[in-house]
């Protein structure tokens, strides 16, 4: 009996070692392409590949002085800011009734709101292309791309804020009302501060999604370039270390903003707790 247990545990140990090795390989698989991309952006070798012939910032310098990159960066930021503004306001507004109203067709509305991220972005792109050019006769511009991206980013904001509202203790609002606050005061002084971290996270999320969005933008932006579109047009001529440098910077920006999105709610909560403790002490 004792031997049986031992055999079993040895087998479990073997399984653990095998699976851990496997998991490590998976992480290598997931990160190798990205790590190599960044590595080659610092490589003196101008083919953007091995061997590493020395370390340099030349490609970054080149990217910084390239007017096409400048153009793409400013368009990307302009588009991303507008998309963030629209999807945060629209998404937050929609999250409230989605969680709180007692409509009978609420789950239908929920599916309707989430559909834009279930349907391939390609279809959003082409269908808006037809709407804008054939039906409205609009000229394609960064603004048409903003609309397309907002359709795709808003559902994410709705999901994030709705999740926060779901966990919200509604007796706090009743308490505020009992203490004489009107609807607006309750919203501003009680509800908004509590869901604010989720709203900010949603905004940062929308911003990153917009920075990286390719397919919808590709169809709707007309003659302009965002960074992903610029990278795509360059890829046609082969990989260059300069594109690697631009790509690495875009990557760093996304990671930074995402890190903020995840860290901010935690920080806000910690600060609030510290303030409360200071006040009660």
């Amino acid at each position, binding site marked *: 009996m004792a031997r049986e247990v031992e055999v079993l545990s040895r087998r479990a140990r073997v399984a653990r070692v095998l699976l851990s090795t496997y*998991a490590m390989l998976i992480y290598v698989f997931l990160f190798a392409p990205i790590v190599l991309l960044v590595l080659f952006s610092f490589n003196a070798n101008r083919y953007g590949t091995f061997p590493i012939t020395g370390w340099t910032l030349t490609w970054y310098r080149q990217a910084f002085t390239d007017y096409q990159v400048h153009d793409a960066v400013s368009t990307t930021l302009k588009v991303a800011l507008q998309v963030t503004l629209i999807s945060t306001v629209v998404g937050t507004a929609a999250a409230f009734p989605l969680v709180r109203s007692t409509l009978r067709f609420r789950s239908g509305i929920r599916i309707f709101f989430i559909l834009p991220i279930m349907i391939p972005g390609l279809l959003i792109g082409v269908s808006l292309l*037809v709407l804008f050019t054939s039906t409205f006769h609009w000229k394609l511009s960064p603004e048409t791309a903003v609309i397309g991206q907002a359709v795709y980013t808003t559902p994410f904001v709705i999901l994030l804020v709705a999740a926060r509202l779901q966990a919200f203790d509604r007796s706090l609002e009743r308490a505020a009302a009992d203490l004489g606050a009107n609807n607006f005061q309750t919203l501003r002084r009680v509800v908004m501060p509590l869901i604010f971290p989720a709203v900010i996270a949603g905004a940062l999320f929308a911003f990153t999604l917009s920075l990286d969005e390719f397919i919808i933008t590709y169809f709707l932006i007309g003659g302009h370039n965002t960074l992903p579109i610029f990278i795509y047009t360059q890829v046609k001529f082969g990989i260059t270390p300069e594109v690697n440098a631009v790509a690495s910077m875009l990557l760093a920006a996304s990671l930074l903003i995402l890190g903020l999105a995840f860290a901010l709610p935690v920080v806000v909560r910690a600060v609030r707790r510290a303030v409360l403790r200071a006040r009660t002490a």
Partner: protein
Amino acid sequence: MSASAETAEQPQAVRAHRRGAGIASYGGFIPAIVLFGLFFLVPLAIIVCYSFWETIDYSVVHHWTLDNYRYFFSVSAYVTTMWSTLWVAIVATAIAIGLAFPFAYWLSRYVPQWLRLPLLVLVIVPFWTSYLLRVYSWLTILGEKGVLNRFLQWAGITHHPLGVFLYDRPAVILVLIYLYFPFGALTLYSSIERFDWNQLRAAMDLGASPLKAIFRILVPQIMPGIVTAVIFVFIPILGEYLTPQIVGGTGGVMIGNLIVNFFQAAEYTRGAAVSLLIALFIVGLLALFRKSLSTADAYGA
């Protein structure tokens, strides 16, 4: 007098307050309904109409016909592309989920609690970085001057760079697996995590081999999670454009590339028909698996 006026006013105020609350509670929908209605539903409706209309001399004529669909199914290259898209999606999904299962199993069984979340976040991180860059980065590995060829030359396995790694269907499948693995791992993990491991131990105490215990006890219980993972990997692959475009070459063409080609050639009605075929197929799948999807929040980061 003033007191009675006050009491008379009270219910009215309450009613007004309630009505205000009603508007406040539904009013939030209005911007979203405008956004999604005008810029999501209306364009889709237009696509539906276009797919049944005709293009004559580069202009769309409102004349109802099935010609666009007939045309699509009459060109054998298109039909082949449709089947190969399905095939690529099935193979990539199967491998991605197959790779994700042992990983999720490892994460929820062998990793201490405090380490699980960081390791899970690490899987999702690439997923939230630029989609274009993740496809693009494979060029630096699979290309003629890529890492793989450099390695093979260095190891003396080949003297000339090999072009076989890129621009064909296997490259497309590889990159798709890479792109969608995190989706599969995340979904599978969240359902394996809830599994009671005592059941597995009990099965093995009763004489089942570990593999048998996994497939007879664990797998049936997490079936809804597996279905969700499969759907969430399979569906976006159907609409892929960029991966076959960048690494696929002529052998890796998928239906998304066809759609783009039609629209770029201003053949809107034909492109609309193909778009509608994909959209209907996807909505059909979603409706079919609605039950198992509703319990899972695959986007919950």
